[in-house]
Structures are given as structure tokens and as C-alpha cells.
């Protein structure tokens, strides 16, 4: 019994350390394989590439990857249309409801290929890995449960409660000023 507990504790610790690893260079074959998202015919849902679970789904759970995603969100003009998650020309991302599916592969596909009604395709503007980082972060904006690996505020204008303060339910009051 104690041994099992110890093993469990060890596994938890290892999971924690995976959350902290900083993988800065993805191996090229994995990079290629990450592009193989099997979408349903309507472009929504489907299966992520096999390599994603094998890698340990870093883009949704790894703090470094999530924070890279957050940087890309600002760098590649996502804010111009979606604001800091509240939406503008593009829809809000904070409410955790997506027209094209909440799973990470659908978000990936939305960013990579674009969607009707104005979402441009970022296929040739971001690399596959960057799109995954961004997708993981975008999912974090609207998840119902807070992720411990999620980033918090940026060093810029305060716009909304931080990503780590999930759930994104109505109980979080808007910042008053």
C-alpha cells in the first residue's frame, strides 16, 4: 500500500516536472506529424495527431508552451479581432464556447486553415508548432477549470481576470474601474 502511494506520489511529481520542462526544439518528424489532424468532414472535431498524446499533450499542460502561446496571441494580431479574449470583430474566446468546437484540434484547425466569416488562415504565417502553442493557449482562455500551468497577467494594460482564475463562469466580476 505504502509502495503504491509512493509510486503515485512519484508519478505526480513527474507530471509536475513535465509541466515545467522547456522543450525549445521539437524534432522535425514530430513537427511534421503534428500537422496530421484528422478532422471530421465539417472541419470540426476529430482526432488529434497520434504524436500529441505521445508527447504528453504539452501544448495544453506545459507552462512554457502555454506562455509561448500567449506571446504569439499578442504578436500575431489575434488581439486586433478577439481583443484580450472578449472579442471585437471576432467573437469572444473567454466564454468557453466556440463555434467550431472547444477541443484543441478544432482550435488548431481554425487557426491553421481559417474559418468562414472572417477568420483568416495562419498556415503560412505561423509554423505548426506555433499554431499548437497558440491553440493550447486559446483553449486556456475559455476553459471552465483553471489550469495551474496557465499564465496570469501580462505586463500591459489590465483587461480581464487572468487565465489562471478559471472557471470562466459568470462568478468572476468584470474588472471595475
Amino acid at each position, binding site marked *: 500500500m505504502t509502495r503504491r502511494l509512493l509510486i503515485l506520489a512519484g508519478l505526480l511529481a513527474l507530471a509536475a516536472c513535465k509541466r515545467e520542462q522547456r522543450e525549445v526544439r521539437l524534432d522535425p518528424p514530430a513537427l511534421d506529424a503534428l500537422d496530421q489532424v484528422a478532422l471530421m468532414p465539417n472541419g470540426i472535431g476529430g482526432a488529434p495527431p497520434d504524436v500529441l498524446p505521445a508527447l504528453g499533450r504539452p501544448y495544453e499542460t506545459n507552462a512554457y508552451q502555454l506562455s509561448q502561446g500567449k506571446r504569439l496571441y499578442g504578436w500575431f*494580431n489575434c488581439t486586433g479581432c478577439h*481583443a484580450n479574449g472578449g472579442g471585437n470583430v*471576432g467573437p469572444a474566446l473567454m466564454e468557453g464556447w466556440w463555434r467550431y468546437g472547444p477541443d484543441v484540434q478544432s482550435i488548431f484547425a481554425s487557426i491553421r486553415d481559417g474559418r*468562414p466569416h*472572417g477568420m483568416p488562415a495562419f498556415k503560412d504565417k505561423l509554423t505548426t508548432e506555433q499554431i499548437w502553442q497558440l491553440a493550447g493557449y486559446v483553449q486556456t482562455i475559455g476553459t471552465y477549470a483553471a489550469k495551474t500551468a496557465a499564465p496570469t497577467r501580462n505586463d500591459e494594460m489590465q483587461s480581464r481576470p487572468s487565465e489562471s482564475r478559471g472557471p470562466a463562469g459568470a462568478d468572476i466580476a468584470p474588472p471595475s474601474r
Partner: protein
Amino acid sequence: MVVLTPFPHALFALDLSRPGAPVKWRFVPEADGGAEGLACCDTINAGPVIADGKVYFNSLDGHTIALDVATGTMVWNVRTASLDRGETLTGAPLIADGKIFIGNSGDDFGARGWIAALDAQSGHELWRRFSTGPDDNVGIGPGFQPFYAHDHGQNLGAASWPPSGWQHGGGSVSGTILFDPVLHLLFHGTGHPAPWNPDQHDGDNKWTSGLFARDPEDGMAKWFDQIDPHDLFALGSAEPGLAIDRDWHGAARHLLIHPDPDGYVYVLDRANGQVLSAAPFTTVNATRGVDLATGELRRDSNRASRFGTMTRDVCPGWPGATAAHSAPSADGRLLFIPVSRLCMDMEARNVSYIEGTAFVGANVRAKSPADGLRGALVAWDIEAAKPVWTVPEPFPLAGGVLALGGVVFYGTLDGWFKAVDAESGRTLWQFHAASGIIGDPIAYRGPDGRPYVAVLAGLGGSFGMVAKSSIDKRDATAANGLANALQDLPEPSDPSGTLYAFGLP
């Protein structure tokens, strides 16, 4: 009556001669959905125009379309704007001289502004002039005689920008295009320079945020007056204002009355572009007035937006002190201005120009002024350059004003349609519509001979976006920061548009 819906535009012809005004025909063009993501301030449209038996309108996705007014059949359909470059069409076409004049939108996507003339019969493009770039692009030739010295020079549309900044510099022609049959000139405003981050558009940014007078025949510029050089707060000067011929301090002059988003009413001589008067009609703290000798706007250096810092409490804030059509009183003495009194916090951020994506570079948080009154209807004495009366409003006024006899009609974001006395501002009558009002009220004489006032209720536009379900108001920067200022804007009870027509006594 013809009604145009927002994107993806459907056009309805209503037969007013029959009770209930049934639909006579409808027209739905094939649309490129991608345009929705490019429209800066909701999928709006300033409306169709009817002339010579045809209905002309612009579609958001970059087409100008002519229909037969009687049957609704398409006469021609020309692609005039490129979505790939972030251009959209939201303004109404202008018909004059057998030509259709159109201008683009898309400042926030870094689209270069342009105005173009099409042949009314064929839709064939006659000329196209840009708001930025070298002189030949802009339509500047020997006939260009701006009033002020700083507008003289070679290729200022490129030289007053950082290298190649003009290529994605904004300055769209999204407002009304004004045709002056007296001087035979076109007047149009230009939008703000792109991006919002002023640090990325060093220089005066000719010819954005100013007013052009052009020759309708070839589009060559006659004069230009830059209202807001190096526009720090993305206010632009899209609406040219009103052409009024009246006495000015004793002498009859051709005036252009231009209430600008920067909070001043400019009175210009529309023959030469001289600024005759400029006075603030609302709270202004980012600038300290206009030097009439040079036409320059004096800025307050404490409220200069700068890279990496936050500029707090800029008034007027985005989207400008006035963004809708003003109306003059019948005698031309007063101007009724629908005012937004919002202020804002703005933080300039670095932004990359990536074709077809938003080119903003700023975090913006609009907010109420200290007294909490976010809107007003101002009756402005043009010659005295001061307000006569002010009707405070809780929400900014986004719709236009109709002055009819001694009565001024206007609508509010929370759905009130009001009539006030033109002399005193006293409310005479009000009606609560099912949705907010951002359109211009119109007056017409019905087939029964009675006068009617009609207004389209349906929340939208920059302000109305906040009430959309796709905006999350917990994000203070949502809808370019208006979410923050309009937290309490009620959701319309009926989100679809409703046309109200009121009979007048």
C-alpha cells in the same frame, strides 16, 4: 422604400402605398463571409442610394452593385475593394454627375484609403485616388492648393511616413462623400493612420485624418486640410460635415461645417480649405485648441500616447467625440451634434503588419468621463462657436440627427427615439424601441400625403457591438475597449432590426 440589411446584405423593397408596407421584392447577393472578420466596427452599411431608376449599394465584401429599383434585378456588380488587403465597403455610394463615388473602409487592417469614381451606367471605374503615398497616387497635381504651408511639398503622402509606412497606412474614405454643386467639388474626409500605435507612424502621416476637396471629374485634389496630423488616438476625420452657404461675420461664404471626432467644430471655407473657426463642443483634454494661423492642432504633451506607456484618461477617446451625422437647423444658425463623451486609456503596443489581419497595436479601454454622462445632443451656434443648449444622455449618441421644422429627432443606444425642441432642447416626445438606434432618422411624405419620420432600430456599429452575444464584457478591451465603457448597455429586447415609422401631426 428600400431597406438594406447588414452583411450579408439583403435588400428589401417595401411598398409604402399599401397598408403594412409589404415587401415588394428582395435581393440577396452572393457574399464572401470573410468580410465579417475585416469590418472594424461591426458589419454595418450606410445604406443604398436610388437614382435614375436604379438602386446602388456597396457590399461589405467589396462589391458595388446596381439594381433595377422596380424589379430588384441586378444591373451590374463590380468588385471594387480587395478583402485580401483588408479593404471593406461600409459607406454609401454617392451619385452625382452620372458617376458613382465610393470609398473604402479598413483602417484597422492597414488598408490604404481610396476614393473611386464609377460610371453609373456600366460600373466601369473612372479613377481611383489614394489617401497615402506619392502624389500621383493621391491625385496631387498643379491644381492642388492647400491653404496651409505644411501641406505644400513633394510626395508628402510618402515623405511624412516612416519608410513604406504609407503602404499600409490607413486613411480610409469610409464616411459620407459630399458633392458640392455650387463649387463643383467633392469633399471627403480621411480616416486615421494605421496602426493605432503612433510610434509606428512617425511623422505627419499625410493625408490621413483630414479633409479633401477633389475635382469630381478626375479626382485630382483641390485642397487638403489636415485636421489631426500624426493622429495619436486613431480618431480620424472620416465624415466631411455639412456644406452650408451663409453669412460669416458679415460676408457670405461657402462654408464647410465639420464637427470632428477630436471634439472641435471646424468651420472651413470650402473654396480654399481655410479654417475660420475651431472650438470644442465637448470635454477635450488631449489638445489645447487649434492655431488658426497655421491650422495646427496644439497637443498636450502630458497626454501624448507613446510606445510602451499607458496614456490615461484621454478625452475624447475612441471612437471620437462625434461619429454620426449632425444636422443644421433650418435657418443654418445652429448645428445639432450627436456627441459621444467617452474618454479612454490607451496603451500603444508593437504590431506587425500581416496582410489581412488586424493592424491595431493598442490596448484600449474606453471609459465614462468623470461626470458619468457618456453622451449628449449639443445645439451648436456656428458663428458664435459655442453651445446653445445640451441634452445630456447616459449613452453616447451613435445615430444621426434629423432636424425638421422646430423639432430635432434622434435615437439612443438604449432604444429611445426622442424629439426635442430645437430652440430649448426640451424633450417633446419619446418612444422606446425594441432595440438601440444607430441609424439616421429620415423624413418622407407618404403616399397618403402625410409626413412621416422613420428610423431603423437595431443595435450595431462600434457601440452596439458591445451588446452582441459574441462580446464578453469581462474583457475591458473587448470591442476596442467599448465593452468597458458600456458595461450597462442593455441587451436589446429584439436583436433583429425593426423599422419604425411615425406619422407626424
